[in-house]
């Protein structure tokens, strides 16, 4: 009777007072049951990558699918071999240059200054002169038309292996542009935006010749700021002339000594610079990893400031909407939940995501369907989706009033040029639908469709792409250093312009080509681009994917990451 009850219960209670054979039976039953449980969970987590939608109690209104496929081991070994060979040849060439056997085209010390402290650090230039120079023709290509969906490039050749370039007076026409951050296709020289910019130039001129605080505050600036605030759904906004300067000049105004800044591992250089200039303590959490962020928050609140253990004056979490090197989207619902729980402030940099994400194009807040009031400081740029230049900061009215008098950009930097302001106003009205047409709405939807289509086709072809399924930034892995140069050149030969990135802007083995999808790309252009990419991929053997996609958050990062702490 007792034995029967024990048999039926699934707990690990092991009956001690029954014969050996029965113990064996119980053990088998126990293992068998647990095995099925384990197998069930294994299947769940390995097959369904969308588990996050249900795991967090409905925090996410939509499936959040990210993938960062792990580097194949053979590819990693070959990449190191490639860098090793390049290093050996670099040393050889340096030796030849030093002994004047080969012509030296880099900057050298003057003869009579050889005994002084060196002006040029020879070794710091090693990578530039031996690796970068060989494939330098993939960057800084001069464009001689508007960088829309198609562009014209000036053809250039080099007779001394990329040390100097000469123009051949020919123009490469109609190169498909997969590198411009032209998400909604507003980089155009015809249409309502360009016409209104022309009119405003006729009326106001091009330069403002003063700062916002002095006499450079035009009525167009005021109208633009009101429009930006309305677009984002916040109380007030302020615009600055340069996106980089927005971050680096305003974070010091918001945080100072005694504050804590928690910034993501892969934050942009402008955010890092702004955090450093502010003088607050900076702690870095692993990319998009909410467990790491929570751990840091808890430790910070429990222990307080480093030596005095006083409470922090404020804690500012700095994240980006879309990370342009990875193509990943921030886990905003979880960040906001953490921020509310631990009473921290949130600074969201929507440089790439404003206009590009969300059903109405209002950015990552719109994409997740959250309340804009939850984000304390919303920052963004006009450079990417609006086809203009500059950045903005938006939030509560008191915050923006404070920034108007305390921000370096507002006080010392010249205000934005009137045609640029007009471009922002017209494009924003277009996206919101206030100009009476549905062009904006159509463009937002076209971008979303293009993104999903492009990513799906690349995955099907067998390339490894990083990032979220909905992000219009598509990094495609190349891995080996020689393939960086080869890919860029082969694509240009077939009339497609791409941006390739390598070490040290990315980790050493993860060099990539980064495609930026635009609403201005038609399906034909995308199809042509995809067929060319497939052809070049076969030629260079870039189809590395073995479809072992790891579900996020299991991003393959190194557990033992040490950081440079300079408290």
């Amino acid at each position, binding site marked *: 009777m007792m034995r029967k009850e024990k048999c039926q219960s699934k707990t690990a209670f092991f009956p001690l007072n029954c014969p050996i054979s029965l113990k064996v039976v119980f053990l088998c039953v126990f293992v068998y049951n647990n095995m099925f449980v384990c197998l069930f969970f294994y299947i769940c987590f390995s097959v369904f990558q969308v588990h996050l939608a249900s795991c967090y109690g409905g925090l996410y209104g939509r499936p959040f699918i990210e993938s960062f496929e*792990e*580097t194949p*081991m053979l590819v*990693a*070994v070959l*990449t*190191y*071999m490639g860098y*090793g060979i390049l290093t050996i040849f670099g040393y050889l060439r340096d030796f030849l240059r030093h002994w004047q056997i080969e012509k030296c085209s880099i900057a050298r010390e003057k003869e009579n200054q050889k005994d002084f402290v060196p002006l040029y*650090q020879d*070794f*710091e230039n*090693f*990578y*530039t002169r031996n690796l*970068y120079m060989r494939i330098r023709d993939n*960057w800084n290509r001069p464009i001689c038309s508007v960088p829309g969906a198609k562009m014209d490039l000036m053809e250039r050749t080099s007779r001394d292996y990329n040390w100097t370039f000469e123009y051949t007076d020919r123009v490469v026409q109609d190169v498909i542009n997969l590198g411009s951050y032209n998400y909604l296709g507003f980089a155009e020289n015809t249409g309502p935006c360009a016409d209104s910019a022309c009119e405003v130039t006729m009326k106001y001129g091009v330069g403002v010749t003063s700062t916002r605080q002095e006499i450079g505050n035009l009525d167009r600036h005021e109208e633009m700021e009101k429009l930006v605030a309305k677009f984002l759904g916040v109380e007030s906004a302020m615009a600055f002339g340069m996106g980089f300067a927005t971050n680096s000049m305003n974070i010091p105004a918001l945080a100072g000594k005694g504050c804590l800044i928690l*910034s*993501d*591992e*892969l*934050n*942009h*250089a402008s955010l*890092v610079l702004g955090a450093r200039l502010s003088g607050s303590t900076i702690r*870095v959490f692993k990319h998009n990893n909410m467990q790491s962020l929570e751990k840091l928050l808890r430790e910070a609140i429990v222990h307080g400031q480093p030596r005095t253990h006083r409470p922090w004056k404020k804690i500012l979490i700095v994240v980006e909407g879309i990370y342009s*090197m990875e193509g990943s989207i921030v886990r905003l619902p979880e960040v906001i939940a953490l921020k509310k729980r631990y009473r921290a402030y949130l600074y969201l940099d929507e440089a790439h995501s404003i206009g590009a994400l969300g059903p109405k194009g209002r950015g990552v807040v719109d994409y997740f369907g959250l309340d804009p009031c939850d984000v304390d400081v919303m920052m963004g740029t006009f450079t990417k989706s609006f086809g203009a230049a500059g950045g903005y900061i938006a939030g509560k009215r008191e915050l923006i009033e404070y920034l108007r008098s305390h921000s370096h950009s507002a006080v010392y930097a010249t205000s934005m040029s009137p045609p640029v302001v007009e471009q922002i106003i017209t494009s924003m009205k277009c996206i919101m639908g206030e100009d009476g047409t549905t062009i904006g709405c159509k463009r937002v939807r076209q971008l979303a469709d293009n993104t999903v289509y492009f990513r799906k086709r690349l995955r099907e072809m067998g390339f490894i792409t990083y990032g979220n399924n909905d992000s219009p930034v598509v990094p495609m892995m190349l891995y080996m250093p020689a393939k960086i140069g080869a890919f860029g050149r082969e694509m240009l030969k077939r009339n497609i312009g791409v941006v*390739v*990135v*390598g*070490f*040290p*802007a990315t*980790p*050493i*083995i993860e060099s990539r080509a980064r495609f930026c999808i635009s609403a201005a790309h038609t399906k034909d252009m995308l199809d042509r681009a995809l067929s060319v990419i497939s052809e070049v991929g076969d030629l260079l053997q870039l189809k590395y994917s073995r479809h072992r996609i790891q579900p996020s958050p299991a991003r*393959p990062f*190194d557990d*033992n*990451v*040490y*950081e*440079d702490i300079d408290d």
Partner: protein
Amino acid sequence: MNVGTAHSEVNPNTRVMNSRGMWLSYILGIGLLHVILLSIPFVSVPVVWTLTNLIHNLCMYLLLHTVKGTPFETPDQGKARLLTHWEQMDYGVQFTASRKFLTITLTPVIITSSSFTYPRFRYILTSFYTKYDRVHFVVNTVSLLTVLIPKLPQLHGVRIFGINKY
């Protein structure tokens, strides 16, 4: 691409040894060197082992303990300019996984028996292969010490007699 980092990892050199496949590449590299040396016709096996040991230690000393700074400009304002690669690894934190791995794989390059490379025993192995010949032993031990001593945490940032200071 700008030849510089675009994010908060100021010195990518610190993470190079932890990257995926680096340890395997290192071991494969040593294996390749050994095989190349073995294919030279007129050298005997103990000499080949000693040569592998010597060349490996020499290269390691040059690359990890002599060359200072980074081959690219870093936004850390020159903090790592006077540090060797070993000192830069993991921002100077001692006893990390990569440091332990690189220290342990030194000792095995001394083989005497045919069966290979359990890294731990290479020093011992080379001794065995050279039949404990005194000259080989002295040469191998001296070479091992030149590359083992700079890895000790007590010698972090130490420049003896001012060699390699700037």
